[in-house]
């Protein structure tokens, strides 16, 4: 390893260092605002290391990670999402009046580090390491507030199921190694293309890897944990879980399947196509009957991952562009939605039941307008980022003439509008006499304003993001 390698690894190193420094600062003195500031600065520092890393990209650093524009784009996305999480959590933690609130920020940094490693991984070892670093921190984050049993229950549920999925993943990797002696994605692909694989071992291995990843992505039928965990986790953590954790696994899967390229394409298409359709249907049908906004967003996220998989199945450059676009739009929308949920929390409970949103338009017009924007974006209505995202997913599907998937997406999209609109109508209903609302803190207010601008900006002027993504997508294919 030489100096250039270190520059390329800069963002990861800065993030790791930030976690250590934050931890040490807590040892010196417990101060929630200071800790949050240090963690935030750590994320900014990591982001500042991105341009330098981009100058030396693409670069394979050891056999484990590859720093290229694709990875850097995803790292940037994760850093931004983590920053948003810290801003929101700062408000949330203060409201909860928990003792020992400071370690929360360390855990966010660690989980983000794991996600960034996933985005760069070209090897099953770094895949697994990144995934575990990300997940272990999340177990603690989900169960962080000790005010009630719901958080602990959610944390435990995630721990058990994520542990089981890691076991699947690990077993799959072990089978690959047993059969082919390769753990790097390229080595795996080369061995398969050379016809060295034993079908009885390689196919179960791939199936296990896909199953393990599907747990993390929460695509049906591996989605059972989602509603409970989304509801039980504090709202900023739910936002983090929905975006960074899933985005990272998707980035790693993209790398793996781009490397595998043309290997047994029909089987891959059928597998992911089936996952996509079941996810869309399961997510949307479950969401129809939810009475809790967090559970509703959880079910809708299952459906959205189904839409992403439609984009995932296109040919490499189209798929990369469509998936990345979808993820960016989904990140913005989801973070904004959970941001609204966070700042609407009052007293000792979160605003979760749909009844909490009744008449919100007349009580908190700005927040209600933003949440409406988020829901319309999730439904894929014009003027929002989600519209372009859905356009990309459909365009990716039609480019390969996968009409069954496209029609499934269309039907589900119409279905999903039904429950998003239910929330909008509830917000527009006459306002009940409500408890005095908490003021939106400055940091969270600025963050939500930026997210709202992005939500509309991406919907009105998509060309800039497309140009950025297109520049990076060439790095992979």
């Amino acid at each position, binding site marked *: 390893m030489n100096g250039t390698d270190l520059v390329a690894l800069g963002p990861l190193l800065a993030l790791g260092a930030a976690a250590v420094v934050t931890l040490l600062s807590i040892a010196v003195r417990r101060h929630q605002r200071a800790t949050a500031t240090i963690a935030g600065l750590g994320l900014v520092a990591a982001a500042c290391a991105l341009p330098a890393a981009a100058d030396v990209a693409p670069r394979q650093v050891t056999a484990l990670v590859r720093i290229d524009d694709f990875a850097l784009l995803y790292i940037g996305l994760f850093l931004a999402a983590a920053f948003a999480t810290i801003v929101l959590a700062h408000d949330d933690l203060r409201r909860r009046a928990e003792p020992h609130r400071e370690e929360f920020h360390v855990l966010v940094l660690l989980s983000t580090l794991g996600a960034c490693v996933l985005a760069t991984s070209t090897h099953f070892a770094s895949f697994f390491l990144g995934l575990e670093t990300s997940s272990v921190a999340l177990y603690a984050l989900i169960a962080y507030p000790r005010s009630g049993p719901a958080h602990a229950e959610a944390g435990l549920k995630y721990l058990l199921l994520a542990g089981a999925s890691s076991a699947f993943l690990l077993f799959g990797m072990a089978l690959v190694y047993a059969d082919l002696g390769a753990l790097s994605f390229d080595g795996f692909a080369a061995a398969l293309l050379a016809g060295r694989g034993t079908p009885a071992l390689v196919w179960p291995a791939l199936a296990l890897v896909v199953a393990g990843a599907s747990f993390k992505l929460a695509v049906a039928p591996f989605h059972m944990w989602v509603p409970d965990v989304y509801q039980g986790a504090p709202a900023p953590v739910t936002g983090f879980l929905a975006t960074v954790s899933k985005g990272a696994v998707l980035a790693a899967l993209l790398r793996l399947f781009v490397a595998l390229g043309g290997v047994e394409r029909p089987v891959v298409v059928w597998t992911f196509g089936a996952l996509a359709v079941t996810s869309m249907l399961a997510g949307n049908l479950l969401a129809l009957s939810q009475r809790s906004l967090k559970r509703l967003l959880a079910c809708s996220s299952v459906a959205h991952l189904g839409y992403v998989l439609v984009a995932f199945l296109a040919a490499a450059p189209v798929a990369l562009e469509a998936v990345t676009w979808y993820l960016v739009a989904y990140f913005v929308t989801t973070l904004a939605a959970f941001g609204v949920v966070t700042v609407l929390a009052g007293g000792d409970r979160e605003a979760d039941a749909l009844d909490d949103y009744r008449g919100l338009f007349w009580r908190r017009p700005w927040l209600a307008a933003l949440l409406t924007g988020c829901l319309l974006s999730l439904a894929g*209505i*014009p003027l929002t980022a989600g519209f372009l995202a859905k*356009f990309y997913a459909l*365009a990716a599907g039609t480019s390969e003439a996968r009409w069954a998937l496209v029609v499934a997406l*269309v039907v589900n999209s*119409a279905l999903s*509008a039904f429950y998003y609109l239910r929330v909008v*109508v509830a917000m527009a209903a006459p306002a009940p006499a409500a408890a005095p609302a908490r003021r939106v803190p400055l940091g969270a207010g600025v963050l939500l304003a930026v997210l709202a601008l992005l939500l509309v900006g991406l919907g009105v002027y998509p060309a800039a993001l497309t140009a950025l993504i297109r520049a990076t997508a060439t790095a992979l294919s």
Partner: protein
Amino acid sequence: MSLLWLVLLPVVGGLLALPLRDRGARWVALGALAAALALVCAVWSAGDGGRVADLSLAWLPQMGIRLHLALDGISFVLIVLTLVLGLLAVLASWTEIRERVGFFHFNLLWTLAGIVGVFLALDLFLFFFFWELMIVPMYLLIAIWGHENRTHASFKFFLFTQAGGLFLFVAILGLVFVHQQATGELTFDHDRLLDTPMSEGVAFWLMLGFFVAFAVKLPAFPLHTWLPDAHTEAPTAGSLVLAGLLLKTGAYGLLRFAIPLFPQASATFAPYAMALGVAGILYGAVLAFGQRDLKRLIAYTSVSHLGFVLLGLYAWNEMALQGVVLQMVAHGLATGGLFVLVGMLSERTHTRDLEKLGGIWDVAPRLGGAGMVLVMAALGLPGLGSFVAEMLILFGTFRVAPVMTALATLGLVCATIYALWIVQRTFHGENRGGWSFADLRAREAGVLAALIGALLWLGLYPQPVFDVARAALASLQGVVSGGHS
């Protein structure tokens, strides 16, 4: 740039009206619409009658998507109709809407902006953008300010139009990728997609995708079930915009996109589409006189009248097409006027039930007189716009499909029955409800007089509309016959 402003004026007006209360919001809405009306007239009169303005800017160049807006005769007629009815919608809700006035006008103006955009867009992606844009505010208009059963009706409206819209989107994407495969050029531009070479099967399926979306909006016979609910439950301004304008976007879509883009497939499909049109004419008319709710009755007459539009469109000759354009305008004015009238009536009586109404003429002769004229316009009395339009459609269609035309003519007989039924049950007879209320106020009388005046003008001297639309229709016909050769 002036075309962009045509869309932006209502958008900006809506944003300005949003924080305002009562009078302020209403005047801002009137001002924005009047300014847009003046602008479109200025742009049109500066041109030579063809495609007078054309704006094409890069929007998402990587995907071949451009901000392409153009104004020709058909667009001009429909945009003027949009803005005029928009002005009347603001006036008609002057006293009806008392809650959240700013937000109401925001939704109304954004719906109108979407509709104006639909009539201007020549990039298919942009067209779809506007197509979807108008749905959400319209939905909110029904869901928030509607009548008793508004939640159900607004959901039904949204789901039908949204599902239809997504099929349109898939069809657009399909067409674009077929075009890309054939020519290597990725573009959503209407002008470039016109002569896309494709196999008959592909063309048929894509055409069907377009047709379904437009037929939902139109609404054509089996896809119309959202309409009676939505029209009945919407507030007056909502019903006016729905009947007068939203339905026209479906007809416009068929005229501008579905048929010219797929001339061959449309010719194959024409008999079925015309059969659906005739079915709509008869079915809508028969159901209309089974209704007790006055608004529901008028809603079904829309199904019937728009059946003529579908019939005329697929006949595709100049006479029928001129009739179609005129029918769109005349139906917008007549049915819109009827909804406004019912709004005024139910503001006074708090009922729309034909069993309870009656004897209104004695109480409010001006209201009754205006109602009489509008109902006569709906049944197609000579001298009023609808008569000219429906006759032209029937004459034009007769050359192509005499049997269909004969059946469609039965619709006129039914129209007479339901129209007279309205007059008899509402205005004549015994005053069973013991009604007693003030007659039309000056503002209300002005709104109805403007509508009736326009209908008379169209009925007695429709030539200006024909002149405006002629060049645009000729170029559409040229495109289609070019495709045949």
